[in-house]
């Protein structure tokens, strides 16, 4: 654009006219884009306010009706089939539940990154599909390794 300014005055006037016209059109399209985004996501925002109300208001309803539970402290202790609870509930848990979320972390972004790839196949043609296949192949090799090493066993 800079090199055209001195050399060709007609072209520079043409470009400045185009820029100002497109700016107005850009403002107009930005306003309608904003309106479109708001109209798409406004129901979500309102729903995000309403659904916590729906789930939290029933929590307060029993208060006028409930009895006083401080007269029976055994009611509030942890349930262990009738006997007194033994030991602390949070001391230990089975270690085999620990790797499951860790192994979930890998395929979860894998499938998340696959979503933008899956939608426009006619625009990304063969090259796009094969590059995604390479990505999935690398992660599949990792999954095979973790399978063979027994990370998913004995669960």
């Amino acid at each position, binding site marked *: 654009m800079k090199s055209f300014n001195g050399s060709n005055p007609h072209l520079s006037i043409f470009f400045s006219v185009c820029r100002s016209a497109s700016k107005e*059109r850009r403002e107009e*399209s930005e306003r*309608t884009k904003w*309106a*479109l985004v708001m*109209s*798409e*996501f*406004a*129901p*979500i925002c*309102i*729903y995000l306010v*309403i*659904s*916590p109300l*729906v*789930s*939290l208001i*029933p*929590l307060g*309803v*029993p208060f006028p*009706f*409930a009895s006083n*539970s401080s007269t029976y402290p055994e009611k*509030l*202790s*942890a*349930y*262990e*089939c009738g006997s007194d*609870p033994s*030991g602390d*509930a*949070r001391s230990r*848990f*089975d270690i085999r*539940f620990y790797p*499951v*979320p860790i192994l*979930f972390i890998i*395929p*979860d972004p894998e*499938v998340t990154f*696959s*979503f933008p790839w*899956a*939608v*426009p*196949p*006619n625009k990304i043609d063969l090259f796009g*599909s094969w590059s995604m*296949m390479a990505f*999935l192949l690398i992660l*599949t090799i990792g*999954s095979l390794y973790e399978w063979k090493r027994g990370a*998913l066993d*004995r*669960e």
Partner: protein
Amino acid sequence: MIIDSVEVETINSFSKLELLKEVYGLISILPILTLLLGITIEVLVIVWLEREISASIQQRIGPEYAGPLGLLQAIADGTKLLLKEDILPSRGDISLFSIGPSIAVISVLLSFLVIPLGYHFVLADLSIGVFLWIAISSIAPIGLLMAGYSSNNKYSFSGGLRAAAQSISYEIPLTFFVLAISLLSNSSSTVDIVEAQSKYGFFGWNIWRQPIGFLVFLISSLAECERLPFDLLEAEEELVAGYQTEYSGIKYGLFYLVSYLNLLVSSLFVTVLYLGGWNLSIPYISFFDFFQMNKAVGILEMTMGIFITLTKAYLFLFISITIRWTLPRMRMDQLLNLGWKFLLPISLGNLLLTTSSQLVSL
């Protein structure tokens, strides 16, 4: 991309409220409240249906005292639970204890945003519709873990861990199959997915194009809803009631609600993704064109769309309830093996097949 104001107004006129077009916020409250009312009625129907079907399978009579044919049984149960005392465990974490069920309810309620019951009859026509559902349904295990941990009970904690492990293990095959549907329909918007199935009537349904996907989606969504045969979290012999042990009153009612709401969302999504949504699949020549009254035709089409979607969803509900009362329960290691070692490779293979079929047809 030039967006016309006509398109904005079309999207905004979700219902027949023509007066409030400029105020974007107020338009959305009435449809949302209508949806919540509809959801409540549906849950009542599902609870009644489950008890009647289970009674028939076990050759006994179901509820018959609360209202005619026992239809108000769920209302009676809900009212009883509302009036019960709210017991908070003595050494548990009270704030987490209270918020746990609410988080699960919120995440399931938010999934109703993107379910279409007709062409312009969806609360939020997002271009990332199914992806939003997948993302939001990942929040539910957090609520279950909170509930299990804050109860200060060994059995609750163990149940909460199992619930979270089961939920996240079956999310990945579920998401891969939803991804395959997106690939077939070239869109993640639920409205587009239903529209893509409307071309050949009955034979345009995605169930014929993704038969493995239909079966695996059924299995995975049953596992996500924690229904039998993946019912281990409520195994009374092992875990008392899992993460729900220390809950009483309306918080227990909220967990009960989450279970049925999740089932409803899953069955509606099966309808939308595989069974053709609101399309009446008998190929009919549109006889509505003969009527000149546009508004009446619009209302009639809307009603038919809702009716057809709900019929298909209730088919899947009937299948789920029958499966629950027929099959035995799976063990935890069998469950996780099924999710990780069987369904995940199948989902990747299906994705490969679908991609190659799409590339061949390009």
